[in-house]
């Protein structure tokens, strides 16, 4: 079957989609967006977290046909998504992240000292600065979940952060650096940096 939906602000079409296929499979294998990670395939690990109509979900548990006509944001579109949010919407009408841009997106980040580099969302920059990334496999899911929490709750307590990230497993960091990163992103956000 064919599925039409919006990915990172741009309309996309996926063809020859099998009816039992997950949104995660469509994103990774049909649209070439491997940022959302495939691990447990049962909603336990959160590595495949994306926003579906704004709500964080495990894309491995969404049937492809269920996203027809709906809006998905993946980690590849997070920087642009956060930018638009900060600017209060899309002024030009030509926002979003194209498939080609998304495919070639790299988390270069800006140098903490010089401030040079590509644009990242505040939460992505905070993960780099706090050293919250080790193997990096859980990172995309954590970024999407953390960014959504900061959108809802700009001044989270530690308990709020733990709760919001409780569906994302990390097997490297012991979570402390991740907590640091989210606190850092929240602090920068509230200072308007």
């Amino acid at each position: 079957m064919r599925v039409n939906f919006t990915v990172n602000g741009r309309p996309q079409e996926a063809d020859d989609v099998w009816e039992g296929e997950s949104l995660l499979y469509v994103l990774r294998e049909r649209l070439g967006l491997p940022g959302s990670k495939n691990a447990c395939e049962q909603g336990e690990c959160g590595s495949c977290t994306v926003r579906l109509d704004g709500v964080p979900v495990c894309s491995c548990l969404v049937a492809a046909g269920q996203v027809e006509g709906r809006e998905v944001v993946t980690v590849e579109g997070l920087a642009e998504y956060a930018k638009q949010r900060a600017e209060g919407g899309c002024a030009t009408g030509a926002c979003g992240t194209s498939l080609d841009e998304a495919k070639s997106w790299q988390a270069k980040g800006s140098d903490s000292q010089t401030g040079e580099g590509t644009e990242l969302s505040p939460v992505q920059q905070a993960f780099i600065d706090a050293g919250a990334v080790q193997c990096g496999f859980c990172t995309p899911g954590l970024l999407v979940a953390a960014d959504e929490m900061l959108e809802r709750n700009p001044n989270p307590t530690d308990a709020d952060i733990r709760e919001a990230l409780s569906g994302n497993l990390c097997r490297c960091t012991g979570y402390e650096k991740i907590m640091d990163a989210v606190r850092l992103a929240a602090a920068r956000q509230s200072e308007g940096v």
Partner: protein
Amino acid sequence: MDFLRPASWEEALAAKAEHPTAVPIAGGTDVMVEINFDHRRPEYLLDLNRIGDLYEWEVGEDTVRLGASVPYTKIMENLRAELPGLALASHTVASPQIRNRGGVGGNLGTASPAGDAHPALLAAGAEVEVASAARGTRLIPIDEFYTGVKRNALQPDELIRAVRIQKADGPQQYSKVGTRNAMVIAVCAFGLALHPRTRTVRTGIGSAAPTPVRAKAAEEFLNAALAEGGFWDNGKIITPSVAKQFADLCSAACNPIDDVRGTASYRRHAVGVMARRTLTWTWESYRGARRATEGAA
């Protein structure tokens, strides 16, 4: 496999009547796991995401009519006062991502003995509103809904429209045993609701029998003991011997198995502990509310 996408409830019932083997999918948190792992290859998937009615709830005088697909997140955010037991149970479901998608309709459809909502529904008192194109709507009392391990009272052409849950008329509690706080399937779970209006107590046990069950003998014992001692009126502390007898009877209502999550004897024991604790918590809350209304310190 065919993907059926009804745009309305009537279309969904018609599709289910035409294809009784169709598997309904809403949040997908059970169905997609089975498909991803190749445990299930249904001929038809019946997507319910486009049916807005299923995502709405109505608070009536005595009951809440909770649409089958209302996500757990919404229950936690909006129905804590009316359905405190279910709101607590909702909060123990998996993770935010899962709570954003899953709802009570799916829990009932899957009818796993470990489903988190069941003990809360049993304790509060509820009816499952199901419908078919041929016979219209019928209400199934929650006590008659669970018929076996992952089996329920639905006919092949029926879909779950909503669940009608008694609004709380007293304190309710929910307790769940697992190896960690988030992302955990219950080793066992317990729900308890005080119903001061009828001077009764209702219970629900999860993951400790082939189906979710009530501890009816324990309820009858406690109802009699509370009436006999005048507890509902005098608001005294429940005596330890009554609490212990209640806990023992709740343990006895279990019919658990040994599995990877825990042994049968552990489950029996844990259910007794949860029964005693939830009784204490709810009764303390009832006594506190009584004192507040009487103005006595």
